């Protein structure tokens, strides 16, 4: 008996990989429709922060994620941008991750059309920039010192959406969706220094790390992982990719719990029985 358990204890990890793959794939092929019950406080705060901005306010989106974290972050970005358009906010998009440009493109191929928003008038997308810290500092004094043209090469100053926007103090909020540490720079170099309200969306893996910023109000709200995306989608009542991933997420978490419990029970049996 103990030998079998010992063997089970040191099981080839590829079996676990296989088990996880099955658990994740099944609900994708055949959705179960598990409920998304609660909405986290931080997601609600993010929603409310954006929701109470007056019409026509300018919100700067810094979408800094590449295809690797796309399944978690793209649904978040899509949901928040939908929310912004629905509230008739002006949207500006910047990015410091080269791989993000294509993903931004994919969002804006679809979402503005749903709300009849026009490029240049209601939103503007700016080109990729390397070296985020330098760019963030520069934007504090003159946005156009860095972004003199939008992604399509149009003069940024003359875009109707940019009317009256010169630096952070003209912006109602900065939304940073990222799987990188760029969020730390936004908090330290922009949020704190120039008193710009900051809302963020991050991967589930890095979500616990931002607790202190939430507590001090340096972040007004935080959307975490695919669950956060699903929560935001349910807040704006537009189910999307986030909601559809909830089944897999649910079962995946339960598998982890089951595995941890199993390994500990085996440990107990081997040690004490």
């Amino acid at each position, binding site marked *: 008996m103990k030998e079998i358990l010992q063997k089970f204890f040191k099981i080839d990890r590829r079996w676990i990989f296989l088990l996880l793959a099955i658990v994740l794939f099944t609900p994708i092929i055949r959705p179960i429709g598990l409920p998304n019950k609660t909405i986290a406080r931080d997601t609600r705060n993010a929603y409310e922060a954006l929701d109470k901005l007056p019409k026509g306010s300018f919100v700067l989106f810094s979408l800094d994620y590449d295809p690797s974290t796309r399944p978690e972050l793209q649904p978040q970005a899509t949901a928040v941008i939908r929310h912004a358009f629905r509230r008739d906010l002006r949207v500006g998009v910047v990015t410091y991750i080269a791989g993000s440009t294509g993903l931004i493109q994919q969002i804006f191929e679809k979402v503005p059309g749903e709300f009849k928003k026009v490029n240049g008038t209601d939103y503007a997308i700016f080109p990729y920039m390397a070296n985020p810290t330098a760019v963030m500092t520069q934007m504090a004094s003159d946005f156009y010192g860095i972004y003199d043209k939008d992604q399509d090469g149009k003069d940024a100053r003359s875009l109707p959406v940019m009317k009256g926007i010169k630096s952070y*103090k003209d912006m109602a909020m900065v939304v940073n969706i990222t*799987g990188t540490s760029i969020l730390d720079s936004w908090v330290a170099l922009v949020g704190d220094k120039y*008193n710009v309200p900051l809302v963020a969306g991050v991967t589930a893996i890095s979500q*616990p790390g931002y607790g202190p910023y939430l507590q001090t109000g340096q972040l007004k709200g935080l959307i975490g992982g695919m669950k956060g995306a699903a929560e935001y989608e349910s807040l704006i009542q537009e189910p999307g990719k986030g909601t559809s991933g909830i089944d897999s997420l649910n079962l995946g978490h339960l598998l982890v719990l089951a595995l941890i419990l199993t390994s500990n029970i085996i440990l107990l049996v081997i040690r004490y029985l």
Partner: protein
Amino acid sequence: MKYNRSIFMLLPLLLAAAPLNAAKPAAPKAPDAPLLGVTAADMPYDVGNALLLRWPVNPADDADASYQVFVSSQENGGWIKAADFAASANKGKDIDLPFWAWNGGAAEHAVKVELADFFGEFKPGTVFGLKVAALRKGKQYAESEPLKASPRGNWFRLDRLNNLLLLIVIVVVFFMAVSHAKRKGLFIRRIAGLDAIDEAIGRATEMGKPIYYCPGIGTMSTISTIASTFILGEVSKKVAQYDSYIKVPHYDPIVMTVCKEVVKQSYLEAGRPDSYREDLNYFVSADQFSYAASVDGMISREKPAACFFMGYFMAESLLLAEVGATTGAIQIAGTDIEHQLPFFFTACDYTLIGEELYAAGAYLSKEPMLMSALKVQDFGKLVVMLAVFFGAIVLAAGTWLHWDSFVQVILNLFKAY
């Protein structure tokens, strides 16, 4: 301060507003009566693009009262509305400046007018006109005389004095520690992860297999990356002494350039410049997961004897460490990204936490000058500990006893402006 005289202007205003206090429905006073006591000046401690307007609070102001601020760049006319707010807003105490740099209270209005919002770029020394209008139920009943003021760039952020003083104290302690270290050695506690470096390199030499050193995905402005280059220097010195073989895959080209210099120097110091090769450091990818995939591939193909993961790591930490663990390499990791530490703990033999990583360079090199910096770190921690401990007690007591201004002073002292 000249602002204080505005307090004395309160009286006429009080008198002027007196009829409003009567129970009768608020009949506006004679239209366009002058609003007194308004002063305009340069906004202190700024780059020179804002002006500051101050005037005493009218005690008769109620929920219907509001003010409008106008600004003009012309000699006559050309007024632009710069602010429109309820009488309860924009008090002197609302200006976010500490007590040593600002004397505004609740008895006056203070409005910061950002000129760049209305006039864009302007020449230094430009004189602007300002005036304030008082309104009741949206109707103007009084207006100030037009005032002139010119903004100028200031040379010191007095509000950051607390920060500057702290910096000076740290610098002084820093130099004291350095000079002390020159005279006398300093004790430093054992760090198991660093003692294991010798063992790891020895093992690699015996097995004739390479050592992988990943400096992570930080740039040269990340402190953990800088610390990592220090450790790389010491590790590669030992590698050169043992005549083993090190490989350093890079994420950032600037870090690569610096590391090349560091490794080269170490080989020189170890007396083995002939063993040094330019391709020990090589660039892999500036994309996080491409980097992880590539390094994972190399580790699983070459099965190194030891892997070092020192520096700035995000989600790739487990991808790298787990693959390294399956090849059976001795793994030593170190990062200051605390939410990646659990992954390193589970997959590596030794893990340096945050500051241990910073201390590693000093620990390995045993240079007294570098070790002295650790003392400064300890001093800093002591200051923080005392400040947190006594700050919490004093603030709790102050709040409990309603010593509001005392609490405000403490909060100001510890705030970053």
